[in-house]
């Protein structure tokens, strides 16, 4: 196990690459998800406003 973690003396290089990859992959996923949640929230609010004000009133009174 120690030998595995040691990576033949290249531990710092190998593990930093794998760690960095994990961080970037998770970050990318998280950013995309957060953006989607944001857009869904906005769209839901708009939908609520438009149903509340009635579909006939097309003047831009929203928000």
């Amino acid at each position, binding site marked *: 196990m120690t030998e*595995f973690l040691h*990576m*033949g*003396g*290249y531990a710092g*290089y*190998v593990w*930093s*690459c*794998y760690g*960095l*990859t994990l961080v*970037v*992959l998770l*970050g*990318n*996923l998280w*950013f*995309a*998800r957060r*953006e*989607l949640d*944001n*857009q*869904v929230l*906005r*769209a*839901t609010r*708009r*939908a*609520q406003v*438009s*149903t509340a004000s009635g579909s006939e009133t097309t003047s831009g009174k929203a928000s």
Partner: protein
Amino acid sequence: MWLWFYKLASPPYAYTVAGKLRPWLLWSAIVLMIVAAYGGLVIAPPDYQQKDAFRIIYVHVPAATMSLSVYVVLAVAAGIGVIWRIKLAHAVAAACAPIGAWFTVLALATGSIWGKPMWGTWWEWDPRLTSELIQLFLYLGYMALRSSFDDTQRADRASAILAIVGVVNVPVVKYSVIWWNSLHQGPSISKLGAPSITSDMLWPLLTMMLAFMLYFAAVLCDRIRSEILKRERNASWLSGVMSTRAAEA
């Protein structure tokens, strides 16, 4: 087939499909990544020259491959958007950009960390490294250009032209190690039929590449859905979907 294609190009349908596909893509990507990482870190024998440092290949090469493939997807989508005026194609192109930029950053960073013990330097103005850096600037330029327009349609058209012109850099990156005398090593797997690495080293790499593709597709689903929501903000189907969601919640 064509009918399905037309259907898919409609934003409401694409929005639903992307949402349904995402978990399948993401979970298969995660499983394959774990398998490939185990194969690459444990099963594969150390390289005779680079010893255990070569294991960086299992994250570096998939990231670098994706940085180019994502750009090709982006440019093709942008081209389709310009030629056939399909809104969804522009949405796909815009959705690709941040993901591709992250893959490029990852390829450059892991390459740099690999370069230090092997070449004795973090960075060299070498053809492969320089053209990959230009690739990053293409992504950043594309995103900057998009955000400089308030009008989505104008942003779509202008950025599409940049995306299509920028495609010339893809073969430059890919063949830079063959065309010029580069510090970077040559391809290990592109020689189909006779790859220059052993199968215990090869399968984890191919598996990881597949995993990265699935991961890209999963993130792309989220990004496409965001793009659709942004673009269709006044569409009636959207307020229908969202008010039912709100009612359920």
